[in-house]
């Protein structure tokens, strides 16, 4: 397998852009990535794209084809990847394989999405006893925030996590986002602001749960040989991994799980992260910063423990000492994360890679993690999908 470098990244700001077509948002993100890479559109040899259920792609999830047709068809292969909120990480992994395997020297990875407002609706088919989505949502009253809230509530019992500590994660996120021009919510919050926001699903409050947004991001991947011609600041993909879940997680992906005493509940992600560490030859202690999928504040506490970045029950301690801030020992989501961007679900994995590349190139301005050399990105999506990427400079 060949080494693969990221030579260009580009992002359309996250927000609500009711009057702007998705194609235009994606064209701008692709344009920024190509310009950053010094690569022309007709030099792209393959496209790996995020496939959206909610917007674009002619209603068939053909978002990569739509982008190619919008910018101008060049005859290259287009792959449309679908993995729920893990889609962007999945698209990156396929782009990585195309270059690593020698099938292409220069590949575009792109994902963009415009989300419907409010809580995401279920897709279940009515009355179907074998449709786990239908049983979860329509029969058992489940929602996304309720899923995260039950995990969070259990953590409060297991580890003594307080509502103030949960709120502190959101305060930290907004402090970072204030320095990020692409973030949707850039105002800083006090602990009281967060604690005074409406309870969505006890114990989670409005400012502790990510909203839904519109956004787009793109990256250009190259072989090592091509990368050396293009840039003096390549960012290397040390591992790009996709995994799915296994029995043993304590929280059901349908309406039941086997009872477990364990406190790790995201095997799809743990498997991806641990394989990424092994593939990259990187230890958790080598990681200088993390961009993780903070659909809610809970994940910033639970994920680092499930991955061995810190000890179980230690995350709150690190948070309160500022160690998860950009200047701390374990910086998490210097971008501001999904809490401040909102999720454009399929684009999130590509968004993370953009931020990590800027950090590793030392171009992240006031949110820069000093001397960042090794970075970890992660997504988790419906269908027990998990992805992890490790980048190095």
């Amino acid at each position, binding site marked *: 397998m060949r080494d693969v470098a990221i030579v260009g990244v580009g992002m359309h700001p996250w927000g609500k852009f009711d009057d702007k077509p998705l194609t235009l948002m994606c064209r701008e993100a692709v344009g920024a990535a190509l310009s950053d890479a010094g690569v022309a559109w007709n030099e792209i040899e393959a496209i790996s794209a995020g496939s959206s259920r909610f917007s674009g792609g002619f209603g068939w999830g053909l978002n990569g084809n739509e982008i190619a047709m919008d910018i101008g068809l060049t005859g290259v292969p287009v792959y449309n990847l679908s993995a729920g909120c893990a889609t962007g990480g999945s698209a990156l992994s396929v782009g990585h394989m195309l270059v690593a395997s020698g099938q292409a020297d220069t590949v575009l990875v792109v994902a963009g999405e415009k989300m419907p407002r409010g809580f995401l609706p279920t897709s279940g088919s009515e009355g179907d006893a074998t449709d786990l989505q239908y049983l979860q949502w*329509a029969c058992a009253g489940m929602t996304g925030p309720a899923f995260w809230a039950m995990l969070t509530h259990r953590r409060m019992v297991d580890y003594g996590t307080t509502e103030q500590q949960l709120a502190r994660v959101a305060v930290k996120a907004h402090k970072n986002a204030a320095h990020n021009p692409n973030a949707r919510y850039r105002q800083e919050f006090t602990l009281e602001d967060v604690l005074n926001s409406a309870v969505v699903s006890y114990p989670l409050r409005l400012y502790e749960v990510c909203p839904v947004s519109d956004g787009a991001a793109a990256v250009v991947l190259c072989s090592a040989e091509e990368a050396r011609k293009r840039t003096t600041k390549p960012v290397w993909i040390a591992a790009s991994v996709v995994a799915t879940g296994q029995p043993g997680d304590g929280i059901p992906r349908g309406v039941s799980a086997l009872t477990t005493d364990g406190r790790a509940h995201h095997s799809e992600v743990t498997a991806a992260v641990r394989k990424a560490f092994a593939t990259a030859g990187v230890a958790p202690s080598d990681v200088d910063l993390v961009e993780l999928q903070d659909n809610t504040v809970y994940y910033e506490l639970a994920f680092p423990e499930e991955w061995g970045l810190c000890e179980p029950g230690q995350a709150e301690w690190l948070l309160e000492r500022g160690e998860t801030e950009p200047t701390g020992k374990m910086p998490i989501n210097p971008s501001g994360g999904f809490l401040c961007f909102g999720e454009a679900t399929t684009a999130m994995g590509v968004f993370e890679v953009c931020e990590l590349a800027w950090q590793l190139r030392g171009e992240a301005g006031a949110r820069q993690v000093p001397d960042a050399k090794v970075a970890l990105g992660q997504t988790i999506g419906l269908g027990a999908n998990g992805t992890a990427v490790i980048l190095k400079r």
Partner: protein
Amino acid sequence: MTTSTTSRPIVEGVFTDTAAGPRLIGTRCRACGTPHFPRSPVCRTPACNSADVEDVHLGPHGVLWSFTIQHYKPPAPMRFDDPFVPYGIGLVDLPEGLRVLTMMSAPDPAALKIGMPMELVIEPLYHDDHGNAVTTWKFRAAPAQVKRG
């Protein structure tokens, strides 16, 4: 107040009212003993995957592993009676070896506590356009141990 004329389950083959009381309907693998809910035509334990499974009734007793209160009315196609009343949703550990997702029976979700004993009930989820109750499985705090004897 709606008067319910008849009552029907929101979905068939997932829960049932027996002479002994309400039960969930699942399967148990005859080869390795692993339980599944809802029914599964095969055992989903990776090392087993046997198709030799039997239907079993699960419940009615369990212990509350975690819960939350849903404060906002979820979007369609989920249906609730008007006016919307916040409800509890939780995960209940059954002695059969399953952690089951479930709505909490009204009326006081604030009285719930992680670790408390629970029992299965079948109750209306909403009333349809003709006033018929559409039922689902729920759990509620179990009466004190001493009463169950």
